[in-house]
């Protein structure tokens, strides 16, 4: 009898789509490396030019679900005590998290391409 786990890596990225704006932006913030909660929050705000403002509740509610889904994981490494607070938890993308981010970005880019074809973006409709 084969043994296994509910390994999220076995899941198909498309099964997670579409992502909520919070989840997509958190994945995007982690695309270039691991970050702690506050850094994620600030990067999401900066990336969205201030349009996406998360508070601690939305941030950690999303992180909790993303951890459970296997999209992100806690990094075991900690920065030097002199450089940062040792109590912080750092998060990074998992393999499936990266695939889901790519799949969602492609999905959104197809939507934008469609909007361009329909001349939505140049305001001519």
């Amino acid at each position, binding site marked *: *009898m*084969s*043994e*296994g*786990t*509910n*390994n*999220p890596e*076995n*899941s*198909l990225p498309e*099964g*997670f789509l579409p992502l909520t704006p919070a*989840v997509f932006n958190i994945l995007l913030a982690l695309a270039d490396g691991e970050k702690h*909660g*506050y850094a994620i*929050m600030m990067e999401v705000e900066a990336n969205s030019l201030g349009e996406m*403002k*998360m*508070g*601690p*509740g*939305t*941030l*950690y*509610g*999303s*992180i*909790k*679900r*993303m*951890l*459970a*889904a*296997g*999209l992100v994981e806690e990094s075991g490494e900690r920065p030097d005590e002199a450089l940062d*607070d040792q*109590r*912080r*938890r750092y998060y990074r993308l998992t393999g499936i998290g990266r695939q889901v981010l790519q799949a969602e970005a492609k999905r959104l880019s197809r939507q934008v391409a469609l909007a361009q074809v329909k001349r939505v973006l140049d305001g001519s409709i």
Partner: protein
Amino acid sequence: MNQTESPLIGFSIRMYCMVLHFYPFVFRRDYGDLMVQVFADHARVVTRQRGLKGLLTWWARTMLDTAQAVIEEHTQRGVDMSKVKFVKLSGWAFVLGSVMMFLGWWASSRPEYSPYNFLSRWYDQVANVIAEPMILVSVGLISLGMVGLIVRYGQVSSSAGRFFLYFGAISGGISFITWLSFLVGLDLTGEVGWLVFMYCLAFLFTGLALWGIECLRSRLLPRGNALPLLAGIGVSSFVFVGMVYELVTGNWWNAPEIVNVVVFTLTVVALVGLGYVLQGDVQPSEMKAQAA
């Protein structure tokens, strides 16, 4: 909190710690300290940059966020717990359904009770009465187990896998309704009804067996990934062979007793195992994974 913290920020942090009590306990326990840290970090930054106005703006944003997140977490917890309970229940439905299927099969194989028949036993009176209701209940419970598999593993299965699960569950439901109609005397469809019952029963187990192939390939279950295939293949093969035999010869296939015993024993043991795995694989965090 550092030693030179302004009293305003210290007060804000203490207030925010109180606000956290609106969240579910488990969430607060797991993420409360981290949320306080984020709140405090940003409170210091905005106070340094924009003074009291910045701090009040941050408070307004935090309260709005708290209102949304508290509702979200409590709702999610409620949905999560209902799903957990349902999946647990459906796991036991598999276990009970398979045992009842075995008893129903055994009861239906007993001769009609007669005090003048030396082959009759006292318990045949009971067996004659319970055989048909047992089959009805077992089909219903096994179909419920299939719904539990959809709830628990539907999201992590491929679209084909999901289709097989739905196909099996719907077929089981139709089979249940058809048998129920026999029991309550609404045998409106006659021979066709019997065929519908048998084919749908076969489809129920076929769906389970086909999903079982995906379990073997993708290891969807935490353990015992061969169980769905083992549970599904016996009855579906048995019924289809019987149907083909009947089509070719015009007679119902009376399988050798040993075949019956092997098929039903294999099915029951595998279903009991599958039910046991399902009822134990209901970690709330994993259920929530499907909502991410």
